[in-house]
């Protein structure tokens, strides 16, 4: 489902070229549960951003569902992000002035759905994450765990195939972190491809497939495993 072939991602820092991703080749099948671990600066976040089409490779090919997405234009890439991919961030990234329901509604609004189509889907997404009684609360009125659940509802409301989570428990206490991981795994059980970036080995170990990164490379050629 996800195919990365010889991906390079270079950054220019001053007159130095930094190889954030160095010849990464990786296949991920639909429904897999993958964790990406590694020290900070190893390129795991860059890899995740690239998977989520937030970043472009310097060279190499990225095929999503068989389609080469690196050559797509801005608009098409935005559509792919909207339909195929859900993001969960360490910082939640909820818009503070919008209520939980409105935050969850955003991807549907950007997709141009009619309000009457949006509302039941938002309600269902919130219900699945047990947030129905919080739907009219602003983010500041929610606990960290609740905020991350709102973010997960927002990521899943478009029914994406891939869920990308960047340190989803990084800003949460242990208990809330556990809850969030369970929710993500439950989603994976129901078929969503889950890719979690973390530096917490305890969380990373839970994945069926664990990738380790070092200096922009996948350790031990795990990519095609």
């Amino acid at each position, binding site marked *: 489902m996800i195919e990365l072939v010889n991906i390079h991602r270079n950054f220019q820092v001053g007159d130095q070229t930094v190889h954030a991703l160095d010849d990464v080749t990786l296949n991920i099948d639909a429904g897999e549960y993958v964790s990406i671990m590694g020290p900070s600066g190893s390129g795991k*976040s860059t890899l995740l951003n690239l998977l*989520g089409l937030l970043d472009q490779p310097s060279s190499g090919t990225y095929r999503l569902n068989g389609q080469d997405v690196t050559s797509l234009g801005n608009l098409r890439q*935005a559509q792919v992000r909207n339909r195929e991919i859900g993001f969960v961030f360490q910082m939640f*990234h909820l818009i*503070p*002035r919008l209520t939980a329901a409105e935050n969850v509604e955003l991807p549907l609004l950007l997709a141009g759905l*009619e309000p009457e189509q949006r509302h039941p889907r938002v309600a269902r997404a919130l219900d699945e994450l047990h947030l129905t009684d919080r739907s009219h609360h602003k983010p500041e009125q929610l606990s960290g765990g609740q905020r991350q659940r709102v973010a997960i509802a927002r990521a899943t409301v478009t029914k994406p195939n891939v869920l990308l989570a960047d340190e989803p428990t990084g800003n949460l206490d242990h208990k809330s972190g556990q809850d969030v991981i369970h929710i993500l795994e439950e989603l994976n059980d129901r078929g969503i491809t889950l890719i979690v970036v973390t530096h917490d080995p305890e969380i990373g170990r839970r994945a069926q497939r664990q990738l380790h990164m070092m200096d922009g490379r996948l350790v031990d050629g795990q990519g095609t495993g």
Partner: protein
Amino acid sequence: MTLHGADVIRFSIGSLRGFPSRTVLMLVAMAIGVCSVVVLTSLGEGARRYVTGEFASLGTNLIIVFPGRSETAGINPTTMMGETPRDLTLDDARSLLRSYNVLRIAPINVGSADVSWKGRSRDVVILGSSHELLGIRHWEMGQGRFLPQADLDLATPVAVIGSKIRNELFGAKRALGEWIRIGDRRFRIIGIMGSEGRSIGVDVQETVIIPVASAQQMFNTSSLFRLLVEAKSRDAIETVKAFVIDTLQERHQGEKDVTVITQDAVLETFDRILGTLTYAVGGIAAISLAVAGILIMNVMLVAVSQRTAEIGLLKALGASPRQIIILILTEAMILSALGAFTGLLLGQLGSLIVRHTFPVLPAYAPAWASVAALVVALITGLLFSLMPARRAAQLDPVLALSRR
């Protein structure tokens, strides 16, 4: 992937309410710009209406003759000799009455003299004229009557005084019928001007009017300062003008040594000058709109960097660059429109206050100015937010989201 208009507007209003100080700042900038256009053009328009109104009140279908020629006539013997133009005399005036198209004439002589009554005195503008002046100028009497209908050469010792002169010399005492001294002559007061009589150049309330022959004797001149000729109708104005020029040329041995202007020409000139002035003032005020536009650009740029994370998030959620631009522009347009309408209201209020403070000035903002101010405000708002919107659309979502 097209956004719904209602969603865009709701989202924009939400973000405007999320940053109230920024919103208020931009509203004020826009409002000041539009408001100054409205108020300044209403002042210009008020001045135009005031002046043209005053000119109209000088009289209608009026032709004004004065001695001397304002145009260069080329070289002829008189210019070589440096001869001053011939006087405009009372006989000249009378000769104009021959035309069927001339309704009435009023000769005018102006000078100043000391006017005194029982030890009180003041220096006053003295207007020498005739009975017809009252009608030509549409003045009204306060008390008594105007100069009597008499031969122009008759130097009757009667005077009509302005109400202000009356108050200053006589206070509460009865003025009508009293004898006053003007210069070294004595005149009997036969009338007092009404308070309405006011027009450009002469404040009738501060004037004393005596028969033209008396004034000529007093100021020792046989010439007239002006000659007012009223045509029978508007259509007759040009005929009368030609008649006046021909008659006086004939009487002055073929010399075209008078200048004849029509009220309409003067009115038109002033109308044009003041109309241009209004445009100019409006243009100057429009600069403040441009300034408002630049402020909007700055504030929108700040807004974009303030909301970097939010814009990055929208991109991650699948917003296309176009959608981001639409969202930012809508925000700016809502602000510009609100600011412009606020400014329009403030401007109307401002010109209302001007009208209230200076009742003589009909300071109504011309419709074109209000429309232009609105349109310019919206266009500047749009143009100056294009750059910030572009910048937002090009924002790198990875950087935007990693900032905390």
